[in-house]
């Protein structure tokens, strides 16, 4: 369930980056906001927070299993959910960096 929040959050933030005049910059919070709108860093931070949340969940499940309290199935599902969330986050990050680099290498 963390994938849509990561991906949707990232897309929404990308939309804000592209259109700072829409006034969405304030909604993005003050986490590294620049003059034009939320920065790429803030967007990455948002995505990372939600990924680390699911990571903490899977960590807790693993610890509980070591203590003999959790089911192995719960651990496997929690870890795979985190894996998907991390991969989505990394893929979005790579895509955005790629876009940034192609803008930077644009001849002006």
């Amino acid at each position, binding site marked *: 369930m*963390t*994938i849509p929040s990561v991906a949707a959050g990232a897309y929404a933030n990308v939309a804000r980056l592209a259109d700072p005049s829409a006034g969405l910059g304030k909604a993005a919070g003050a986490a590294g906001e620049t003059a034009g709108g939320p920065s790429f860093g803030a967007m990455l931070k948002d995505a990372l927070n939600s990924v680390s949340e699911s990571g903490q969940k899977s960590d807790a499940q693993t610890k509980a299993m070591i203590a003999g309290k959790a*089911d192995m*199935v*719960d651990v496997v599902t929690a870890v*795979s*959910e985190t894996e*998907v969330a991390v991969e989505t986050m990394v*893929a979005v990050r*790579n895509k955005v960096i790629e876009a940034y680099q192609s803008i930077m290498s644009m001849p002006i």
Partner: protein
Amino acid sequence: MDLMKSIAIAASGLRAQSGRMQIISENIANADSTPSQAGGDPYRRQIATFQSEMDNALGARVVKLGAVKTDPSDFQVKNEPGNPAADADGNVKYPNVNPLIEMTDLRDAQRSYSANLNVINATRAMIQRTLDILKS
């Protein structure tokens, strides 16, 4: 996300089947358990039941292990006068566990578990393939 939901639903199937495995292994392990006192009743075979349950957090119907029922069929009676658990006529009641039936049940649970694992694998493959679009 629907794909993560189907993983969670398949995980409920895994949990239910592992509970069933526990009951089958109890039956197999206790197949020769004799009564504790002379003329008493031995271990009675247990049967796992499944029930469909609405998971509100997930918004889908998952499977849960229901109440564990006992098999009401007759015990096997063997004439063993020397057995300490024998009654006045020398008969000993043995559990109503048929190892062949338990083995079939065990195989059934195993197949069902694999089927649920396959659902998880297929779902993961679908998620991965979707992510590949983003990566390429």
